[in-house]
Protein backbone atom coordinates (compact mmCIF):
# COMPACT_ATOMS: atom_id res chain seq x y z
CA UNK A 1 0.00 0.00 0.00
CA UNK A 2 2.21 2.79 -1.24
CA UNK A 3 -0.36 5.43 -0.49
CA UNK A 4 2.05 8.28 -0.44
CA UNK A 5 5.58 8.16 -1.61
CA UNK A 6 7.04 11.30 -0.24
CA UNK A 7 8.25 13.50 -3.08
CA UNK A 8 10.04 15.79 -0.61
CA UNK A 9 12.74 13.32 0.29
CA UNK A 10 15.02 11.73 -2.19
CA UNK A 11 16.68 8.51 -1.18
CA UNK A 12 19.51 6.87 -2.99
CA UNK A 13 20.80 3.41 -2.36
CA UNK A 14 22.97 3.45 0.73
CA UNK A 15 22.35 7.05 1.68
CA UNK A 16 19.42 9.20 2.56
CA UNK A 17 19.30 12.81 1.60
CA UNK A 18 16.87 14.63 3.80
CA UNK A 19 15.11 17.32 1.88
CA UNK A 20 12.61 19.55 3.62
CA UNK A 21 9.23 18.01 2.77
CA UNK A 22 7.57 21.40 2.66
CA UNK A 23 9.77 23.02 0.02
CA UNK A 24 8.13 24.39 -3.07
CA UNK A 25 4.43 25.21 -3.31
CA UNK A 26 3.74 22.78 -6.12
CA UNK A 27 4.95 19.77 -4.18
CA UNK A 28 3.28 21.12 -1.05
CA UNK A 29 -0.13 21.05 -2.64
CA UNK A 30 0.51 17.61 -4.11
CA UNK A 31 1.73 16.41 -0.78
CA UNK A 32 -1.33 17.74 1.01
CA UNK A 33 -3.60 16.09 -1.47
CA UNK A 34 -1.79 12.79 -1.03
CA UNK A 35 -1.96 13.09 2.75
CA UNK A 36 -5.69 13.83 2.60
CA UNK A 37 -6.26 10.91 0.28
CA UNK A 38 -4.37 8.62 2.65
CA UNK A 39 -6.42 9.93 5.57
CA UNK A 40 -9.71 9.15 3.85
CA UNK A 41 -8.53 5.62 3.13
CA UNK A 42 -7.70 5.14 6.81
CA UNK A 43 -11.12 6.49 7.81
CA UNK A 44 -13.05 4.47 5.26
CA UNK A 45 -13.75 1.26 7.24
CA UNK A 46 -14.97 3.03 10.36
CA UNK A 47 -17.15 5.45 8.44
CA UNK A 48 -18.67 2.85 6.12
CA UNK A 49 -19.67 0.80 9.18
CA UNK A 50 -20.82 3.98 10.96
CA UNK A 51 -23.15 4.85 8.10
CA UNK A 52 -24.41 1.28 7.68
CA UNK A 53 -24.86 0.37 11.35
CA UNK A 54 -25.41 3.66 13.22
CA UNK A 55 -26.40 6.70 11.17
CA UNK A 56 -28.49 4.85 8.60
CA UNK A 57 -30.40 2.74 11.14
CA UNK A 58 -31.00 5.77 13.36
CA UNK A 59 -32.66 7.61 10.48
CA UNK A 60 -34.47 4.41 9.49
CA UNK A 61 -35.82 4.09 13.05
CA UNK A 62 -37.36 7.55 12.78
CA UNK A 63 -38.80 6.76 9.36
CA UNK A 64 -40.14 3.36 10.48
CA UNK A 65 -41.80 4.99 13.48
CA UNK A 66 -44.24 6.63 11.03
CA UNK A 67 -45.16 3.33 9.42
CA UNK A 68 -46.86 0.04 10.04
CA UNK A 69 -44.31 -2.68 9.28
CA UNK A 70 -44.18 -6.41 10.01
CA UNK A 71 -41.07 -7.30 7.91
CA UNK A 72 -43.11 -9.64 5.71
CA UNK A 73 -44.99 -6.96 3.77
CA UNK A 74 -43.77 -3.49 2.78
CA UNK A 75 -43.97 -0.71 5.39
CA UNK A 76 -47.13 1.41 5.13
CA UNK A 77 -46.98 5.08 6.09
CA UNK A 78 -49.49 5.88 8.83
CA UNK A 79 -48.32 9.33 9.93
CA UNK A 80 -48.35 9.91 13.66
CA UNK A 81 -50.60 6.94 14.47
CA UNK A 82 -47.87 5.04 16.34
CA UNK A 83 -47.15 8.04 18.55
CA UNK A 84 -50.84 8.64 19.23
CA UNK A 85 -51.24 4.99 20.09
CA UNK A 86 -48.31 4.87 22.49
CA UNK A 87 -49.47 8.03 24.25
CA UNK A 88 -52.62 6.12 25.18
CA UNK A 89 -51.00 2.71 25.65
CA UNK A 90 -51.12 2.03 29.35
CA UNK A 91 -48.41 -0.63 29.21
CA UNK A 92 -45.99 1.74 27.49
CA UNK A 93 -46.75 4.45 30.04
CA UNK A 94 -46.20 1.96 32.88
CA UNK A 95 -42.91 0.86 31.33
CA UNK A 96 -41.71 4.47 31.19
CA UNK A 97 -42.80 5.05 34.78
CA UNK A 98 -41.02 1.87 35.91
CA UNK A 99 -37.90 2.90 34.03
CA UNK A 100 -37.85 6.37 35.59
CA UNK A 101 -38.38 4.95 39.08
CA UNK A 102 -35.60 2.47 38.37
CA UNK A 103 -33.26 5.20 37.11
CA UNK A 104 -33.84 7.48 40.09
CA UNK A 105 -33.58 4.80 42.77
CA UNK A 106 -30.62 2.97 41.32
CA UNK A 107 -28.61 6.11 40.53
CA UNK A 108 -29.23 7.61 43.97
CA UNK A 109 -28.30 4.41 45.79
CA UNK A 110 -25.30 3.78 43.58
CA UNK A 111 -23.84 7.27 43.95
CA UNK A 112 -24.42 7.42 47.71
CA UNK A 113 -23.00 4.01 48.55
CA UNK A 114 -20.09 4.31 46.12
CA UNK A 115 -19.15 7.71 47.55
CA UNK A 116 -19.13 6.40 51.12
CA UNK A 117 -17.07 3.37 50.08
CA UNK A 118 -14.59 5.50 48.14
CA UNK A 119 -14.13 7.88 51.08
CA UNK A 120 -13.86 4.89 53.41
CA UNK A 121 -11.11 3.27 51.39
CA UNK A 122 -9.08 6.50 51.69
CA UNK A 123 -8.69 6.00 55.43
CA UNK A 124 -5.55 4.46 56.92
CA UNK A 125 -5.25 0.76 56.14
CA UNK A 126 -2.67 -1.71 54.81
CA UNK A 127 -2.31 -1.60 51.02
CA UNK A 128 -3.29 -5.23 50.53
CA UNK A 129 -6.63 -4.60 52.28
CA UNK A 130 -7.34 -1.75 49.94
CA UNK A 131 -6.56 -4.15 47.10
CA UNK A 132 -8.90 -6.82 48.51
CA UNK A 133 -11.75 -4.32 48.88
CA UNK A 134 -11.23 -2.96 45.40
CA UNK A 135 -11.33 -6.46 43.90
CA UNK A 136 -14.46 -7.37 45.86
CA UNK A 137 -16.29 -4.23 44.73
CA UNK A 138 -15.10 -4.46 41.16
CA UNK A 139 -15.65 -8.11 40.20
CA UNK A 140 -19.42 -7.71 39.64
CA UNK A 141 -18.69 -4.89 37.15
CA UNK A 142 -16.86 -7.16 34.73
CA UNK A 143 -19.33 -10.02 35.19
CA UNK A 144 -22.19 -10.31 32.71
CA UNK A 145 -25.58 -8.99 33.81
CA UNK A 146 -26.98 -12.26 32.54
CA UNK A 147 -24.92 -14.38 34.92
CA UNK A 148 -25.76 -12.07 37.80
CA UNK A 149 -29.47 -12.05 36.99
CA UNK A 150 -29.49 -15.86 36.89
CA UNK A 151 -27.71 -16.13 40.24
CA UNK A 152 -30.00 -13.54 41.83
CA UNK A 153 -33.17 -15.07 40.46
CA UNK A 154 -32.35 -18.12 42.64
CA UNK A 155 -31.11 -16.16 45.64
CA UNK A 156 -34.17 -13.89 45.72
CA UNK A 157 -36.62 -16.77 45.33
CA UNK A 158 -39.43 -16.50 47.88
CA UNK A 159 -39.49 -20.08 49.12
CA UNK A 160 -36.08 -21.49 48.28
CA UNK A 161 -33.97 -18.33 48.26
CA UNK A 162 -30.95 -17.78 50.46
CA UNK A 163 -31.95 -14.21 51.23
CA UNK A 164 -35.37 -15.07 52.64
CA UNK A 165 -33.81 -17.94 54.55
CA UNK A 166 -31.64 -15.51 56.51
CA UNK A 167 -34.46 -12.99 56.89
CA UNK A 168 -36.61 -15.70 58.49
CA UNK A 169 -33.69 -16.70 60.74
CA UNK A 170 -33.48 -13.07 61.87
CA UNK A 171 -37.18 -13.11 62.69
CA UNK A 172 -38.52 -11.26 59.61
CA UNK A 173 -41.32 -12.28 57.28
CA UNK A 174 -40.49 -13.80 53.90
CA UNK A 175 -40.30 -11.04 51.29
CA UNK A 176 -41.89 -11.84 47.91
CA UNK A 177 -38.92 -10.24 46.12
CA UNK A 178 -39.83 -11.37 42.63
CA UNK A 179 -43.47 -12.36 43.05
CA UNK A 180 -45.06 -9.14 44.20
CA UNK A 181 -45.97 -6.04 42.22
CA UNK A 182 -44.73 -3.95 45.14
CA UNK A 183 -41.30 -5.52 45.38
CA UNK A 184 -40.28 -6.67 41.90
CA UNK A 185 -38.94 -3.36 40.61
CA UNK A 186 -37.11 -2.69 43.84
CA UNK A 187 -35.45 -6.11 43.65
CA UNK A 188 -34.26 -5.25 40.14
CA UNK A 189 -32.84 -2.00 41.55
CA UNK A 190 -30.95 -3.93 44.25
CA UNK A 191 -29.48 -6.39 41.75
CA UNK A 192 -28.46 -3.62 39.42
CA UNK A 193 -26.91 -1.43 42.13
CA UNK A 194 -25.00 -4.45 43.38
CA UNK A 195 -23.54 -4.92 39.92
CA UNK A 196 -22.70 -1.33 39.03
CA UNK A 197 -21.53 -0.13 42.43
CA UNK A 198 -17.89 -1.00 41.82
CA UNK A 199 -17.78 1.03 38.63
CA UNK A 200 -18.93 4.23 40.33
CA UNK A 201 -16.66 3.41 43.26
CA UNK A 202 -13.61 3.27 40.97
CA UNK A 203 -14.59 6.59 39.37
CA UNK A 204 -14.83 8.20 42.81
CA UNK A 205 -11.53 6.74 44.00
CA UNK A 206 -9.85 8.24 40.93
CA UNK A 207 -11.63 11.55 41.54
CA UNK A 208 -10.58 11.66 45.21
CA UNK A 209 -6.96 11.12 44.26
CA UNK A 210 -7.08 14.37 42.33
CA UNK A 211 -8.09 16.39 45.39
CA UNK A 212 -4.96 18.02 46.86
CA UNK A 213 -3.97 16.60 50.27
CA UNK A 214 -3.22 20.02 51.79
CA UNK A 215 -6.89 21.02 51.66
CA UNK A 216 -7.68 18.14 54.00
CA UNK A 217 -4.71 18.90 56.20
CA UNK A 218 -5.88 22.49 56.59
CA UNK A 219 -9.33 21.22 57.47
CA UNK A 220 -8.01 18.79 60.07
CA UNK A 221 -6.01 21.55 61.76
CA UNK A 222 -9.16 23.62 61.91
CA UNK A 223 -10.78 20.70 63.72
CA UNK A 224 -13.45 19.92 61.12
CA UNK A 225 -15.29 16.66 61.81
CA UNK A 226 -15.56 13.86 59.24
CA UNK A 227 -19.17 14.52 58.23
CA UNK A 228 -18.70 18.27 57.88
CA UNK A 229 -15.58 17.50 55.89
CA UNK A 230 -17.54 15.21 53.57
CA UNK A 231 -20.29 17.79 53.08
CA UNK A 232 -18.24 20.96 52.77
CA UNK A 233 -15.06 19.68 51.15
CA UNK A 234 -15.23 16.26 49.54
CA UNK A 235 -18.59 16.50 47.83
CA UNK A 236 -18.04 19.99 46.33
CA UNK A 237 -14.51 19.10 45.20
CA UNK A 238 -15.72 15.81 43.76
CA UNK A 239 -18.76 17.32 42.07
CA UNK A 240 -17.43 17.00 38.48
CA UNK A 241 -16.90 13.27 39.05
CA UNK A 242 -20.29 12.95 40.76
CA UNK A 243 -21.96 14.62 37.81
CA UNK A 244 -20.10 12.41 35.35
CA UNK A 245 -21.07 9.29 37.29
CA UNK A 246 -24.68 10.46 37.38
CA UNK A 247 -24.84 11.06 33.63
CA UNK A 248 -23.30 7.69 32.87
CA UNK A 249 -25.50 5.98 35.47
CA UNK A 250 -28.74 7.55 34.22
CA UNK A 251 -27.98 6.77 30.58
CA UNK A 252 -27.06 3.16 31.38
CA UNK A 253 -30.10 2.57 33.60
CA UNK A 254 -32.51 4.05 31.05
CA UNK A 255 -31.46 1.10 28.87
CA UNK A 256 -31.99 -1.60 31.52
CA UNK A 257 -33.09 -4.88 29.98
CA UNK A 258 -31.35 -8.13 30.97
CA UNK A 259 -31.87 -7.91 34.72
CA UNK A 260 -35.68 -7.55 34.66
CA UNK A 261 -36.00 -9.75 31.58
CA UNK A 262 -34.24 -12.66 33.27
CA UNK A 263 -35.31 -12.14 36.88
CA UNK A 264 -39.01 -11.31 36.51
CA UNK A 265 -39.88 -11.34 32.78
CA UNK A 266 -41.26 -7.87 33.49
CA UNK A 267 -43.77 -9.19 35.98
CA UNK A 268 -45.74 -9.84 37.97
CA UNK A 269 -48.14 -8.13 35.57
CA UNK A 270 -46.12 -5.26 34.17
CA UNK A 271 -44.71 -4.18 37.52
CA UNK A 272 -41.07 -4.47 36.45
CA UNK A 273 -41.43 -4.03 32.70
CA UNK A 274 -39.00 -1.47 31.29
CA UNK A 275 -39.01 0.58 28.11
CA UNK A 276 -36.44 -1.60 26.35
CA UNK A 277 -38.51 -4.66 27.19
CA UNK A 278 -41.49 -2.97 25.52
CA UNK A 279 -39.36 -2.23 22.42
CA UNK A 280 -38.22 -5.84 22.30
CA UNK A 281 -41.74 -7.17 22.82
CA UNK A 282 -43.44 -4.90 20.26
CA UNK A 283 -40.86 -5.42 17.53
CA UNK A 284 -39.55 -8.93 17.97
CA UNK A 285 -42.47 -10.76 19.57
CA UNK A 286 -45.49 -8.96 18.10
CA UNK A 287 -43.68 -8.06 14.85
CA UNK A 288 -44.87 -4.45 15.10
CA UNK A 289 -41.63 -2.90 13.90
CA UNK A 290 -43.13 0.53 13.33
CA UNK A 291 -44.62 0.71 16.80
CA UNK A 292 -41.42 -0.62 18.37
CA UNK A 293 -39.44 2.02 16.47
CA UNK A 294 -41.71 4.77 17.82
CA UNK A 295 -41.01 3.65 21.41
CA UNK A 296 -37.29 3.47 20.59
CA UNK A 297 -37.33 7.00 19.17
CA UNK A 298 -38.99 8.30 22.34
CA UNK A 299 -36.35 6.54 24.45
CA UNK A 300 -33.60 8.03 22.31
CA UNK A 301 -35.04 11.54 22.75
CA UNK A 302 -35.31 11.01 26.53
CA UNK A 303 -31.67 9.91 26.68
CA UNK A 304 -30.60 12.97 24.67
CA UNK A 305 -32.65 15.29 26.91
CA UNK A 306 -31.14 13.79 30.06
CA UNK A 307 -27.66 14.29 28.69
CA UNK A 308 -28.35 17.92 27.79
CA UNK A 309 -30.17 18.66 31.06
CA UNK A 310 -27.36 17.29 33.12
CA UNK A 311 -24.74 19.26 31.26
CA UNK A 312 -26.82 22.40 31.70
CA UNK A 313 -27.09 21.68 35.42
CA UNK A 314 -23.38 21.11 35.64
CA UNK A 315 -22.76 24.73 34.76
CA UNK A 316 -24.88 25.84 37.69
CA UNK A 317 -23.73 23.78 40.61
CA UNK A 318 -20.60 21.90 39.76
CA UNK A 319 -17.46 23.22 41.35
CA UNK A 320 -14.58 23.08 38.91
CA UNK A 321 -11.19 23.80 40.38
Amino acid at each position, binding site marked *: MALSDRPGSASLPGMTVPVSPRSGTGSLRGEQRREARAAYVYLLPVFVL*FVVFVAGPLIASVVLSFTRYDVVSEPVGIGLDNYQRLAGDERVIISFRNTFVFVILSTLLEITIALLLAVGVQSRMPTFLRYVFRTAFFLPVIT*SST*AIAIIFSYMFSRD*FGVINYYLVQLGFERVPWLNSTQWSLFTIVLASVWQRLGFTFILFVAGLQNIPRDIYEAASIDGVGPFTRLRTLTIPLLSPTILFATVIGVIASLQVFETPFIMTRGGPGDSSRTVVMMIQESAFQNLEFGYGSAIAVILFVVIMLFTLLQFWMSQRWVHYQ
Partner: protein
Amino acid sequence: MAFIVTPEPRRAVMLRRLRASIADGTVFLLLLGVSIVMMAPFIWMLSTSLRSPLQSFLLPPKWIPTDWQWDNYAAVFDQVPFFRFFLNSVLISGAVVIGQLVTSAMAAYAFARLRFPGKGMLFVVLMSSLMVPIQATVIPIFVLLGELRLADTLWAVILPGWSSAFGVFLLRQYFLTIPNDLEDAARLDGATHWRIFVDVVLPLARPALAVLAILTFNQYWNEFFRPFIFLTSYENFPLPVGLVTLQGYLGNGSVAVVLAGVALSLFPVLVLYIFTQRYLIEGITLTGLKG
Protein backbone atom coordinates in the same frame (compact mmCIF):
# COMPACT_ATOMS: atom_id res chain seq x y z
CA MET B 1 2.49 20.01 65.06
CA ALA B 2 5.34 20.77 67.42
CA PHE B 3 4.97 24.46 66.85
CA ILE B 4 1.52 24.70 68.38
CA VAL B 5 1.97 27.12 71.24
CA THR B 6 0.42 25.30 74.17
CA PRO B 7 1.30 21.60 74.17
CA GLU B 8 -1.81 19.47 74.39
CA PRO B 9 -2.29 17.58 77.64
CA ARG B 10 -1.39 13.90 77.26
CA ARG B 11 -4.96 12.73 77.97
CA ALA B 12 -6.40 14.81 75.16
CA VAL B 13 -3.87 13.35 72.72
CA MET B 14 -4.68 9.80 73.80
CA LEU B 15 -8.39 10.47 73.58
CA ARG B 16 -8.00 11.81 70.08
CA ARG B 17 -5.94 8.79 68.98
CA LEU B 18 -8.50 6.45 70.51
CA ARG B 19 -11.30 8.22 68.67
CA ALA B 20 -9.32 8.03 65.42
CA SER B 21 -8.74 4.29 65.76
CA ILE B 22 -12.40 3.68 66.60
CA ALA B 23 -13.32 5.61 63.45
CA ASP B 24 -10.82 3.60 61.39
CA GLY B 25 -12.13 0.36 62.87
CA THR B 26 -15.74 1.26 62.10
CA VAL B 27 -14.87 2.16 58.52
CA PHE B 28 -12.96 -1.10 58.17
CA LEU B 29 -15.90 -3.15 59.46
CA LEU B 30 -18.30 -1.40 57.10
CA LEU B 31 -16.03 -2.01 54.11
CA LEU B 32 -15.65 -5.62 55.16
CA GLY B 33 -19.42 -5.98 55.41
CA VAL B 34 -19.95 -4.57 51.93
CA SER B 35 -17.20 -6.80 50.51
CA ILE B 36 -18.93 -9.85 51.95
CA VAL B 37 -22.21 -8.77 50.37
CA MET B 38 -20.40 -8.29 47.05
CA MET B 39 -18.67 -11.68 47.16
CA ALA B 40 -21.52 -13.75 48.63
CA PRO B 41 -23.39 -14.39 45.35
CA PHE B 42 -20.20 -15.70 43.70
CA ILE B 43 -19.40 -17.94 46.64
CA TRP B 44 -22.97 -19.18 46.80
CA MET B 45 -22.84 -19.88 43.07
CA LEU B 46 -19.64 -21.93 43.39
CA SER B 47 -20.66 -23.94 46.43
CA THR B 48 -24.16 -24.61 45.09
CA SER B 49 -22.78 -25.67 41.71
CA LEU B 50 -20.92 -28.40 43.60
CA ARG B 51 -23.93 -29.75 45.50
CA SER B 52 -25.89 -32.69 44.20
CA PRO B 53 -28.70 -31.39 41.94
CA LEU B 54 -31.36 -32.79 44.25
CA GLN B 55 -30.00 -30.94 47.23
CA SER B 56 -29.06 -27.75 45.48
CA PHE B 57 -32.19 -25.88 46.50
CA LEU B 58 -32.28 -27.21 50.06
CA LEU B 59 -31.85 -24.75 52.90
CA PRO B 60 -29.83 -23.78 54.82
CA PRO B 61 -27.44 -22.89 52.00
CA LYS B 62 -23.97 -24.33 52.11
CA TRP B 63 -21.22 -21.78 51.71
CA ILE B 64 -18.38 -24.24 51.78
CA PRO B 65 -18.73 -27.11 49.31
CA THR B 66 -18.74 -30.53 50.96
CA ASP B 67 -20.07 -32.88 48.29
CA TRP B 68 -17.80 -31.72 45.44
CA GLN B 69 -20.23 -32.87 42.74
CA TRP B 70 -18.10 -32.20 39.69
CA ASP B 71 -20.71 -34.19 37.75
CA ASN B 72 -22.72 -30.97 37.45
CA TYR B 73 -19.96 -29.48 35.37
CA ALA B 74 -19.97 -32.53 33.10
CA ALA B 75 -23.77 -32.38 32.94
CA VAL B 76 -23.61 -28.87 31.50
CA PHE B 77 -21.78 -30.26 28.50
CA ASP B 78 -24.04 -33.31 28.20
CA GLN B 79 -27.43 -31.65 28.52
CA VAL B 80 -26.87 -28.60 26.31
CA PRO B 81 -24.37 -27.77 23.58
CA PHE B 82 -22.36 -25.84 26.13
CA PHE B 83 -19.12 -26.25 24.27
CA ARG B 84 -20.81 -24.73 21.22
CA PHE B 85 -22.00 -21.72 23.27
CA PHE B 86 -18.49 -21.26 24.64
CA LEU B 87 -16.95 -21.51 21.18
CA ASN B 88 -19.46 -19.00 19.78
CA SER B 89 -18.59 -16.56 22.56
CA VAL B 90 -14.89 -16.97 21.82
CA LEU B 91 -15.45 -16.48 18.08
CA ILE B 92 -17.68 -13.42 18.50
CA SER B 93 -15.53 -11.66 21.10
CA GLY B 94 -12.30 -12.56 19.31
CA ALA B 95 -13.48 -11.44 15.88
CA VAL B 96 -14.92 -8.18 17.24
CA VAL B 97 -11.69 -7.41 19.12
CA ILE B 98 -9.50 -7.97 16.06
CA GLY B 99 -11.75 -6.07 13.66
CA GLN B 100 -12.32 -3.20 16.02
CA LEU B 101 -8.61 -2.80 16.77
CA VAL B 102 -7.79 -2.62 13.06
CA THR B 103 -10.50 -0.14 12.04
CA SER B 104 -10.14 2.00 15.18
CA ALA B 105 -6.36 2.20 14.96
CA MET B 106 -6.50 3.24 11.30
CA ALA B 107 -9.08 5.96 11.89
CA ALA B 108 -7.34 7.12 15.07
CA TYR B 109 -4.06 7.47 13.18
CA ALA B 110 -5.72 9.66 10.56
CA PHE B 111 -7.34 11.86 13.23
CA ALA B 112 -4.17 12.11 15.31
CA ARG B 113 -1.52 12.54 12.63
CA LEU B 114 -2.80 13.44 9.18
CA ARG B 115 -4.19 16.73 7.90
CA PHE B 116 -7.20 16.66 5.65
CA PRO B 117 -10.25 18.79 4.90
CA GLY B 118 -13.28 18.11 7.13
CA LYS B 119 -11.23 16.55 9.92
CA GLY B 120 -12.92 18.36 12.81
CA MET B 121 -16.40 17.81 11.46
CA LEU B 122 -15.86 14.11 10.73
CA PHE B 123 -14.54 13.60 14.24
CA VAL B 124 -17.56 15.25 15.84
CA VAL B 125 -19.94 13.27 13.62
CA LEU B 126 -18.25 10.00 14.58
CA MET B 127 -18.18 10.87 18.29
CA SER B 128 -21.87 11.75 18.23
CA SER B 129 -22.58 8.06 17.72
CA LEU B 130 -21.54 7.57 21.35
CA MET B 131 -24.88 9.14 22.26
CA VAL B 132 -26.91 6.69 20.18
CA PRO B 133 -28.11 3.78 22.32
CA ILE B 134 -28.30 0.37 20.64
CA GLN B 135 -32.08 0.30 21.17
CA ALA B 136 -32.48 3.24 18.81
CA THR B 137 -30.91 1.31 15.93
CA VAL B 138 -31.58 -2.34 16.67
CA ILE B 139 -34.81 -2.67 14.66
CA PRO B 140 -33.44 -1.38 11.32
CA ILE B 141 -30.20 -3.30 11.88
CA PHE B 142 -32.26 -6.46 12.34
CA VAL B 143 -34.09 -5.77 9.06
CA LEU B 144 -30.81 -4.94 7.29
CA LEU B 145 -29.11 -8.12 8.50
CA GLY B 146 -32.04 -10.06 7.10
CA GLU B 147 -31.58 -8.39 3.70
CA LEU B 148 -27.85 -9.09 3.78
CA ARG B 149 -28.65 -12.73 4.55
CA LEU B 150 -26.63 -12.45 7.74
CA ALA B 151 -29.53 -12.96 10.15
CA ASP B 152 -28.89 -15.81 12.58
CA THR B 153 -25.18 -16.02 11.76
CA LEU B 154 -22.34 -15.01 14.04
CA TRP B 155 -21.56 -12.22 11.55
CA ALA B 156 -24.80 -10.51 12.56
CA VAL B 157 -23.25 -9.83 15.95
CA ILE B 158 -19.64 -9.38 14.81
CA LEU B 159 -19.93 -7.00 11.87
CA PRO B 160 -21.67 -4.07 13.62
CA GLY B 161 -19.04 -4.35 16.38
CA TRP B 162 -16.23 -3.53 14.01
CA SER B 163 -16.80 0.19 14.16
CA SER B 164 -16.43 1.82 17.52
CA ALA B 165 -16.38 5.57 18.08
CA PHE B 166 -15.08 4.86 21.53
CA GLY B 167 -12.19 2.81 20.16
CA VAL B 168 -11.25 5.62 17.78
CA PHE B 169 -11.42 8.14 20.60
CA LEU B 170 -9.33 6.07 23.00
CA LEU B 171 -6.58 5.32 20.48
CA ARG B 172 -6.50 8.86 19.09
CA GLN B 173 -5.98 10.25 22.60
CA TYR B 174 -3.08 7.86 23.05
CA PHE B 175 -1.53 8.50 19.63
CA LEU B 176 -1.50 12.21 20.45
CA THR B 177 0.72 11.53 23.46
CA ILE B 178 3.35 9.71 21.38
CA PRO B 179 6.14 12.14 20.46
CA ASN B 180 6.55 12.86 16.76
CA ASP B 181 10.34 12.41 16.70
CA LEU B 182 10.43 8.79 15.64
CA GLU B 183 7.86 9.29 12.92
CA ASP B 184 9.76 12.33 11.63
CA ALA B 185 12.92 10.27 11.50
CA ALA B 186 11.12 7.49 9.65
CA ARG B 187 9.60 10.01 7.25
CA LEU B 188 13.01 11.45 6.47
CA ASP B 189 14.09 7.92 5.65
CA GLY B 190 11.35 7.90 3.06
CA ALA B 191 8.85 5.71 4.90
CA THR B 192 5.25 5.90 3.74
CA HIS B 193 2.33 6.74 6.04
CA TRP B 194 1.40 3.10 6.05
CA ARG B 195 4.90 1.97 7.08
CA ILE B 196 5.04 4.64 9.78
CA PHE B 197 1.63 3.59 11.05
CA VAL B 198 2.44 -0.12 11.12
CA ASP B 199 6.09 -0.08 12.15
CA VAL B 200 6.37 3.00 14.35
CA VAL B 201 3.04 4.11 15.79
CA LEU B 202 1.34 0.77 16.44
CA PRO B 203 4.22 -0.78 18.42
CA LEU B 204 4.43 2.36 20.57
CA ALA B 205 0.67 2.28 21.16
CA ARG B 206 0.65 -1.24 22.56
CA PRO B 207 -0.70 -0.23 26.01
CA ALA B 208 -3.68 1.59 24.49
CA LEU B 209 -4.35 -1.27 22.09
CA ALA B 210 -4.27 -3.66 25.05
CA VAL B 211 -6.78 -1.55 26.99
CA LEU B 212 -9.13 -1.42 24.02
CA ALA B 213 -8.77 -5.16 23.38
CA ILE B 214 -9.52 -6.05 27.00
CA LEU B 215 -12.51 -3.73 27.34
CA THR B 216 -13.97 -4.85 24.03
CA PHE B 217 -13.48 -8.52 24.83
CA ASN B 218 -15.19 -8.10 28.19
CA GLN B 219 -18.08 -6.15 26.67
CA TYR B 220 -18.80 -8.64 23.88
CA TRP B 221 -18.23 -11.70 26.06
CA ASN B 222 -20.98 -10.43 28.37
CA GLU B 223 -23.34 -9.05 25.76
CA PHE B 224 -26.90 -10.34 25.79
CA PHE B 225 -29.26 -7.92 24.02
CA ARG B 226 -28.06 -8.04 20.41
CA PRO B 227 -27.23 -11.77 20.23
CA PHE B 228 -30.59 -12.53 21.85
CA ILE B 229 -32.37 -10.60 19.10
CA PHE B 230 -30.18 -11.38 16.09
CA LEU B 231 -29.60 -15.09 16.70
CA THR B 232 -32.38 -17.65 16.72
CA SER B 233 -30.72 -21.06 16.33
CA TYR B 234 -29.49 -22.88 19.33
CA GLU B 235 -26.12 -23.66 17.74
CA ASN B 236 -25.36 -19.96 17.19
CA PHE B 237 -25.96 -18.79 20.76
CA PRO B 238 -23.10 -17.26 22.72
CA LEU B 239 -22.86 -18.04 26.45
CA PRO B 240 -25.21 -15.41 27.94
CA VAL B 241 -28.06 -16.33 25.60
CA GLY B 242 -27.28 -20.03 25.97
CA LEU B 243 -27.29 -19.81 29.76
CA VAL B 244 -30.68 -18.11 29.87
CA THR B 245 -32.00 -20.83 27.61
CA LEU B 246 -30.41 -23.45 29.83
CA GLN B 247 -32.09 -21.91 32.88
CA GLY B 248 -35.49 -21.86 31.23
CA TYR B 249 -35.08 -25.37 29.91
CA LEU B 250 -33.82 -27.06 33.04
CA GLY B 251 -36.09 -25.05 35.33
CA ASN B 252 -35.65 -25.05 39.07
CA GLY B 253 -34.91 -28.76 39.19
CA SER B 254 -31.23 -28.43 38.40
CA VAL B 255 -30.07 -25.24 40.00
CA ALA B 256 -26.68 -26.84 40.50
CA VAL B 257 -26.23 -27.60 36.80
CA VAL B 258 -27.30 -24.10 35.71
CA LEU B 259 -24.93 -22.56 38.23
CA ALA B 260 -22.11 -24.80 37.02
CA GLY B 261 -22.71 -23.34 33.56
CA VAL B 262 -22.72 -19.81 34.92
CA ALA B 263 -19.49 -20.48 36.81
CA LEU B 264 -17.82 -21.79 33.66
CA SER B 265 -18.92 -18.71 31.73
CA LEU B 266 -17.36 -16.43 34.36
CA PHE B 267 -14.05 -18.23 34.35
CA PRO B 268 -12.44 -16.44 31.36
CA VAL B 269 -13.48 -13.04 32.74
CA LEU B 270 -11.91 -13.92 36.07
CA VAL B 271 -8.68 -14.96 34.37
CA LEU B 272 -8.76 -11.73 32.37
CA TYR B 273 -9.17 -9.76 35.60
CA ILE B 274 -6.32 -11.53 37.36
CA PHE B 275 -3.84 -10.86 34.57
CA THR B 276 -4.96 -7.47 33.34
CA GLN B 277 -6.69 -5.78 36.23
CA ARG B 278 -4.62 -2.63 36.02
CA TYR B 279 -5.54 -2.13 32.36
CA LEU B 280 -9.11 -3.16 32.98
CA ILE B 281 -9.70 -0.80 35.89
CA GLU B 282 -7.79 2.09 34.32
CA GLY B 283 -9.58 1.59 31.04
CA ILE B 284 -13.01 1.49 32.58
CA THR B 285 -12.28 4.53 34.73
CA LEU B 286 -10.94 6.41 31.77
CA THR B 287 -13.88 5.64 29.61
CA GLY B 288 -16.87 5.53 31.82
CA LEU B 289 -18.51 3.95 28.84
CA LYS B 290 -19.00 0.49 30.15
CA GLY B 291 -22.76 0.00 29.94
